[in-house]
């Protein structure tokens, strides 16, 4: 569609059951109580000139341009700061107002350079617009105001620049950084004509605590803060509404384009997940889509030691089909399988699992959720009846207490973190349970009431101790439990959790968390009113990951914190479509909609729809596939957008498994660590080329719309359909919308979903069906999906991964703000200017006793392997614990992680590895082999 700016209502929307009626320029208006006069006017299409106000920020009343006259009231109040009153009559255009506004504009323009034709904001400048609206024709004060001419432009940030000469000191950027992002990196420095926006302690933007979310740039009405892409390319001419492909928040964006070239990505105010906010990844780190490294031709080779051959799609697909057929003929149907990707759309995932079940003839399909949130699926299904978070993100605005456990939202889910911090600034209490002192523990205007700094691997000890306090101190919501939960399972759980072995005092020895702190935190959670739990991979990636998820559900049920706004159990999903990939039947034991493959009625419905007999036994999970590959019974794999050889634990075992297979097919956008072991590479598509849907962590199904053609000519679902056809199964769709129609026909929770509905409504949260045609923002409102909530017994069992004299420290892993997972995308953007390598965080004491100084090269060794990386000494990690990220392949963080996994789901225990750290002067043997392989792959 052609570019049309989003309407700016000037001040935020208010929610109220009371409506106020007034007249604006003779028009009757009815708006919620608390709305501003400016907003009321805009609601009926009357735009009042403004500069310092915008509807993402609270009214400020500084520019004096939005003046109005109100009958019966003296003066000319600013419409942005004047609330509506019943029966008021407002005039926005009078001779007096016109004269006043023109005078104000004269003052602004006298202090602003007149370089409009060469200005990067030309055509998108609110100052220019306002001058036009007020009919400015002369400036009586001249044009020589002190607008800081000659002041250097701050171009330190890789994505935007700050030009103080264009600044009108409206403070929108400062307020956006504070109110929307919650970082408080900006202020107005100096006074009078010297006033200017200042980052940090009068530093350049890159040196300051700015997190490059882009909120200030978006708020700026002039060219003061401007995307460098706009400076270089000019204004966009068309826009496509789409969805970010990074984390599980699933932000909606307006891709602003010149032709099919992205000029900038702007967060959409209408986006249900983000409501106009963004982070450095979604806002700016999209350049990888056109990076020179993109794979744009299919590649094949007979052996992984051969060089790649560029071939046609027909040849690559025929090669794949022939190899898969040969393998199945020789080793049986179960000798091949596939893995779906959480980066891909629901439609793309659907066709892969369908190919496995209908064309491969087995259930050997798994997804990368195996290594992140599979315990969420298991735990929430056992307790509540379905595998999904209970709330929408907006719900946090009603929370009185928030427990963040095993998650680091300011880095990994930054747009949700901004919502959360806003609520915390309003007074909600925060409990953080994490071995590391994450930013949320203490950040501007936010301080955690309790930081439960537990030892890695002891989550269940802490959750049991919290529940013990609830039960033994009479904090159970008896009414909720009686109405909503199974009486028998509750009685049993109550007796179990009340045992002394679950008391904070007993479990303190295991967890390291002082009992008093646990007791205080439990009281906060249980008595706050609305208490919400948000959790991440620090909960799931443990040998007791599923037990812990059930423990969280138990605690929420016992305290009645489910089924309304402000409460709930909320997994913060790592990738954009983890929820969707799971919903779409990517697990080897479940059809779409989380229904077991052994359910005859369900299986029959798929057999009837797909015209083929289906297998009724569970298939192999990812680690089982690798194990089977090593014992010779699994020989071929279709890998959709995964990079196992970097992302999965015990990488040397993964490499051996991949090497043992006869045909590894990778569908991806770049050559990766995994393609080093592949025989076929089928070019994939970025989110800018995809047509389909993503489902975010709040079950919100968002449209993903293409802004450019697939670089290699075929969409991913078309490629998969052609492979399936080659294998003898007639898979055919005209377009992605047809796939969603099939999803809706066969998946009860998606029954009402279609592209037409999403295009009309913007987004919808499943379940979306006859009972909830507009979707379900909050689940389990009147009853749980399974009927009554089930309490599960959650005994703490220490992990088998123990420290000893040889490996006396624990390693835990995570991610940081600027990079994303294995870095495939972000490493190919300027985000690496913030984080160019993975480092090892180590406590000052642990460093000191080893003679390690900050920045030293150190070896990190476990019983599985060894790598070298640079040390970062910090008290952010407690004594005895180290931490690193896995964004760079050469770091090899997963060389040291182990084969241990969650008891129920085989989700790897990434978060606990016993290690030793010591000074070194060389890379590890694995890293040396890595570099040799990298050179070989590059043909050097």
């Amino acid at each position, binding site marked *: 569609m052609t570019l049309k700016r989003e309407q700016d209502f000037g001040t935020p929307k208010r929610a109220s059951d009371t409506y106020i009626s007034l007249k604006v320029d003779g028009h009757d208006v009815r708006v919620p109580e608390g709305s501003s006069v400016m907003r009321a006017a805009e609601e009926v299409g009357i735009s009042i000139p403004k500069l310092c106000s915008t509807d993402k920020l609270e009214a400020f009343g500084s520019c004096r341009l939005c003046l109005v006259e109100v009958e019966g009231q003296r003066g000319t109040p600013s419409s942005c700061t004047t609330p509506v009153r019943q029966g008021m009559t407002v005039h926005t255009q009078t001779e007096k107002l016109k004269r006043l506004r023109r005078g104000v504009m004269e003052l602004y323009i006298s202090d602003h350079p007149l370089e409009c034709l060469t200005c990067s904001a030309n055509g998108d400048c609110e100052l220019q617009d306002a001058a036009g609206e007020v009919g400015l024709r002369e400036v009586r004060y001249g044009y020589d105001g002190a607008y800081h001419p000659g002041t250097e432009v701050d171009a330190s940030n890789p994505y935007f620049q700050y030009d103080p000469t264009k600044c009108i000191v409206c403070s929108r950027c400062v307020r956006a950084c504070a109110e929307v992002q919650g970082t408080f990196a900006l202020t107005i420095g100096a006074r009078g004509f010297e006033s200017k926006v200042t980052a940090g302690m009068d530093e350049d933007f890159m040196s300051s605590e700015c997190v490059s979310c882009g909120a200030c740039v978006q708020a700026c009405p002039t060219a003061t803060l401007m995307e460098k892409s706009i400076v270089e390319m000019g204004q966009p001419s068309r826009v496509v509404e789409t969805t970010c492909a990074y984390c599980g928040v699933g932000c909606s964006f307006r891709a602003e384009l010149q032709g099919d070239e992205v000029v900038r990505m702007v967060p959409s105010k209408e986006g249900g997940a983000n409501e106009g906010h963004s982070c450095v990844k979604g806002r700016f780190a999209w350049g990888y889509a056109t990076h020179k490294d993109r794979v744009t031709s299919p590649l094949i080779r007979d052996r992984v030691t051969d060089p790649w051959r560029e071939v046609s799609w027909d040849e690559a697909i025929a090669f794949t089909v022939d190899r898969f057929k040969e393998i199945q003929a020789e080793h049986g149907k179960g000798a091949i399988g596939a893995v779906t990707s959480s980066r891909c759309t629901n439609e793309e995932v659907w066709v892969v699992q369908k190919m496995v079940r209908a064309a491969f003839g087995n259930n050997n399909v798994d997804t990368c959720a195996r290594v992140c949130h599979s315990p969420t699926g298991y735990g929430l299904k056992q307790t509540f009846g379905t595998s999904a978070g209970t709330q929408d993100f907006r719900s946090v605005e009603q929370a009185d207490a928030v427990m963040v456990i095993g998650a680091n939202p300011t880095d990994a889910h930054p747009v949700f973190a901004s919502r959360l911090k806003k609520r915390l600034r309003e007074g909600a209490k925060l409990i953080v349970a994490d071995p590391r002192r994450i930013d949320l523990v203490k950040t501007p205007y936010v301080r955690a009431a309790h930081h439960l700094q537990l030892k890695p691997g002891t989550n269940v000890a802490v959750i049991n101790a919290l529940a013990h306090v609830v039960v033994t101190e009479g904090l159970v919501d008896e009414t909720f439990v009686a109405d909503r939960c199974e009486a028998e399972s509750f009685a049993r759980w109550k007796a179990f959790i009340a045992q002394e072995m679950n008391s904070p005092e007993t479990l303190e020895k295991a967890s390291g968390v002082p009992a008093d702190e646990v007791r205080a935190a439990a009281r906060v959670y249980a008595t706050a009113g609305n208490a919400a739990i948000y959790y991440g991979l620090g909960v799931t990636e443990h040998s007791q990951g599923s037990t812990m998820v059930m423990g969280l559900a138990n605690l929420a049920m016992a305290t009645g914190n489910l089924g309304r706004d402000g409460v709930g159990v909320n997994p913060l999903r790592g990738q954009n479509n983890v929820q969707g990939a799971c919903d779409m039947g990517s697990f080897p034991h479940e059809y779409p909609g989380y229904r077991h493959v052994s359910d005859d009625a369900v299986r029959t419905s798929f057999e009837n729809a797909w015209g083929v007999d289906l297998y009724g036994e569970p298939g192999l999970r990812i680690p*089982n596939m690798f194990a089977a590959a090593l014992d010779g019974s699994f020989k071929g794999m279709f890998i959709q957008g995964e990079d196992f050889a970097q992302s999965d634990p015990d990488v040397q075992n993964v490499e051996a498994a991949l090497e043992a297979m006869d045909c590894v097919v990778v569908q991806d956008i770049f050559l990766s660590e995994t393609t080093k072991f592949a025989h076929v590479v089928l070019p994939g598509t970025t989110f800018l080329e995809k047509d389909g849907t993503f489902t975010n962590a709040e079950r919100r199904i968002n449209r993903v719309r293409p802004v450019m053609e697939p670089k290699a000519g075929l969409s991913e679902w078309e490629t998969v359909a052609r492979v399936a056809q080659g294998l003898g199964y007639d898979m055919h769709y005209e377009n992605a919308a047809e796939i969603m129609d099939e999803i809706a026909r066969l998946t009860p929770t998606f029954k009402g979903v279609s592209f037409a509905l999403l295009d009309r409504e913007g987004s919808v949260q499943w379940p979306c069906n006859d009972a909830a045609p507009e979707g379900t923002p909050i689940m389990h409102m009147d009853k749980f999906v399974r009927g009554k909530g089930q309490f599960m*017994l959650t005994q703490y069992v220490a992990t088998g991964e123990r420290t000893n004299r040889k490996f006396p420290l624990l390693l835990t892993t995570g991610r940081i703000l600027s990079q994303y997972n294995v870095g495939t995308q972000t490493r190919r953007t300027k985000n690496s200017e913030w984080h160019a390598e993975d480092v090892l965080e180590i406590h000052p004491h642990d460093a000191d006793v080893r003679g390690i100084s900050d920045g030293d090269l150190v070896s990190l060794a476990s019983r599985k392997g060894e790598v070298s990386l640079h040390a970062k000494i910090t008290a952010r990690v407690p004594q005895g614990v180290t931490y690193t990220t896995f964004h760079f392949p050469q770091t090899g963080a997963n060389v040291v992680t182990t084969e241990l996994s969650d008891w129920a789901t085989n989700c790897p225990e990434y978060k606990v590895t016993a290690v030793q750290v010591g000074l070194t002067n060389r890379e590890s043997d694995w890293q040396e082999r890595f570099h040799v392989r990298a050179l070989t792959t590059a043909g050097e």
Partner: protein
Amino acid sequence: MKDKDLIRMANQIASFFTPYTDEEAVAGIADHIAKFWEPRMRKQLLAIGVGAKDLDPLVLRALNDPAISA
């Protein structure tokens, strides 16, 4: 698939059921393995189970459940 890995995984399942009665634990272990383990894994575990020393006794009892061998 290595025997020791299957034994570890099966014993982990048993450890979850520790607070339940033995009968419930045996049924729960059998149900979990039947629902989540691919047939070749179940077959191998059954083979290991004959005379295995390292398998949790509750797992050994669960192996008698016909759901696992189905």
